[in-house]
């Protein structure tokens, strides 16, 4: 029972912080709230015995990616005055569209509910590094290797894009 209470609290907090990400006017605050959201999601992973993913999520998302966002924000030196704001009607239509999306996804999900299943897993070992490592380096080894190529491409691309061109310096 306590687990369910914890899960409800965690879920509500996650949604609340996610809303704050969208609603806050200042981008830096959005980043901070997003980090909090990621932490909450990480704790949900832990609740579901996905320990390895929880750690990776924390390190990669909350650690690396969000720091990258913060750096970019600081690099661009933005402030509240130049924060672009959408018109009221646009926001309203977006809200309606998003709301309909939510409703329709809930309807879709209703048919596939997995009611009554508690957090107790059928196999508590699957979230461990050993199990995932086994999968990753046997069944998904090709995809894993291709991922490294993707990373190199992304890295080279990022460097090339962000590099100042010579004519601009001169």
């Amino acid at each position: 029972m306590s687990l369910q209470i914890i899960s409800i609290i965690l879920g509500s907090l996650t949604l609340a912080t996610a809303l704050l990400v969208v609603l806050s006017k200042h981008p830096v605050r959005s980043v901070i709230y997003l980090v909090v959201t990621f932490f909450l999601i990480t704790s949900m992973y832990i609740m579901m015995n996905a320990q390895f993913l929880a750690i990776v999520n924390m390190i990669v998302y909350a650690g690396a990616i969000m720091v990258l966002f913060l750096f970019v924000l600081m690099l661009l030196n933005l402030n509240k005055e130049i924060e672009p704001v959408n018109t009221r009607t646009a926001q309203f239509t977006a809200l309606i569209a998003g709301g309909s999306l939510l409703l329709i996804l809930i309807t879709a999900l209703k048919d596939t509910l997995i009611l009554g299943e508690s957090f107790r897993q059928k196999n508590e070992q699957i979230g461990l590094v050993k199990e995932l490592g086994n999968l990753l380096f046997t069944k998904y080894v090709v995809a894993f290797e291709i991922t490294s190529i993707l990373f190199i491409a992304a890295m080279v691309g990022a460097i090339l894009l962000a590099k100042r061109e010579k004519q601009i310096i001169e």
Partner: protein
Amino acid sequence: MPQDLTLILLLSFPLLGFAINGIFGKQLPKMVIGSIATVAVFASFLLATSLFSRLDGTTIVNLFNVLDFENLQINASFQIDALSIWMTLIITGVGSLIHLFSIGYMSHDEGFYKFFTYLNLFIFSMLILVLGSNYFVLFFGWEGVGMCSYLLISFHYNDAQKGIANSLAGRKAFIMNRIGDVGLLVALFMIIGQFNTLEYTKIGHLIESNKALTGGAMFFITLSLFIAATGKSAQIPLFSWLPDAMAGPTPVSALIHAATMVTAGIYLTVRSNFLFELAPFTQNIILYTGLATTLFAAFMALRQNDIKKVLAYSTVSQLGLMFVALGFGAYTVALFHVTTHAFFKALLFLGSGSVIHGMHEEQDIRKMGGLAKLMPITHFTFLIGTMAISGIPFLSGFFSKDEIMAQALHHNTFAYIVLVIAVTMTAVYMFRLYFLTFHGEFRGGDQLKSKVHESGPSMTLPLIILAILSIFGGLLNLPGLFFKNSAHWFDHFLSAGTFGLNHIHPVHLDFATSIQLMIFASIVALSVLIWAYLNYVKKGNIAKDDKDLNGWERLSAAKLFVDELYNVLIVNPILAISDFTGKIIDIKLLRNGVYALADGVLNSANISRKWQSGFLSSYLFWMVFGLIIFVAYYILKISVWH
């Protein structure tokens, strides 16, 4: 050298000449161009003689596969047998002589290199046509020679006075040939449907093993093949392009429109003999078409005043004669006449070319006369050609015509009578042409007379060689009357070496009948010769102007009004229909319809492009919208399904 390599070389020499002259011709001097083209064809001739000397049954050389279907294979393969090699010998032999002649004849022409490029391409196409081992390769060559013929007829398309007429003549030939080609295509499709192959030998074997293949299909196949033959070989009703084709340079007329290309129809029929043997009705159609053609063409030739036009109608008439032989199923006889005709008609055309060259492009025989003294070699060779075609005894034409007459006498007396009339008319117009051109007074004026000259050696040498061939060509197929043992060599050679012909033997008349026949033919020819001499030389009758002609002469000069008839029956209705469709259907319906469609697209695009606002949030909105629709659709589908 193995046979297949020889064959490939034989085919590639003219192609090589075509390529060299076509690509570099503009830079090369005329002498080099002419030599390349002539040597290419002559080399092919030598290779053909080597193949001829080693001829042994039927050899098929498969080069590569063109089309490969589940149950139909079409190969680019070639067939070496008596028929194809004999045709190759004629094409390359007469072809190289005419190439040699052209060097002199075309020496003043600006399009010299173009001319030889086309000529070599023609030789190549013609070789493909006769050497192919299936109807597909034949069709390839068939279209190739048609195109070369078109290009060469309208060769002087930019001539100041006659340019447009030349272009129109080329167009007419092209269109009329196209009608025949449709027949060939239809025949090809029907053959594929019937036999599942296009190879001559395979079709022949299929027919041999299954005699029940007679009936409707055979009739339509052979009829379509014959339509193709009428187009290429200028038979009624598709003959009127050939006289117009004389707009081309004279060597072209000699090579394409007398010696080789126009015999493609004969070749096609001989090649398809196994099909025609199963369709007696088509053979009758061929016989009567041939008879009508030979008679009417000879009649039209009687009062033509253009030296080349006379020869053109004479060609049509002789081709009709060959089709008469084909109609009787005497394939070797037809081919014998093809051979001798190639010799003496090429000779006559080249002789007329020499005359035209000497007369500075004057073609009207009313302006000639008395050329015998001015152009002695041309005169002498032309006389031999005239005597050969008229059937003066012991020249080549005498024997080949006599064979055909013998077939007619044996099968069908009516045909024999028509042939006698046609052959008599042939002798009449040929001697008229000869006497008006070479005897009597010169009628072209003194100024022209001083400029008339005998042609150079490159033009007279082919004339002499062809004259010799015209005299002795008949020895190829001597009737049994002379040398009993080696008689009908050509018949035996072709029959033994060609698929299908070994079952079919032309009739040979007995001694008494054939000698009567020969004597009668000789008397006719000689009496015509004497009559023409008395009429045109002694009495000095010359060709009259068109307005002085009476009754039948006017009919002959106006070519029996065939062109006018075709205009009324076919051309004008088609023009009217085209006019109608052009003005009503095209403009009113199609053009406006297309415009309306384009306007509709433009307007709707103008409306829908407003969606491309460039704002990312609106794109996202539409994306989410689409997503919602999709998911909603699936939910609905699942709930309905449940």
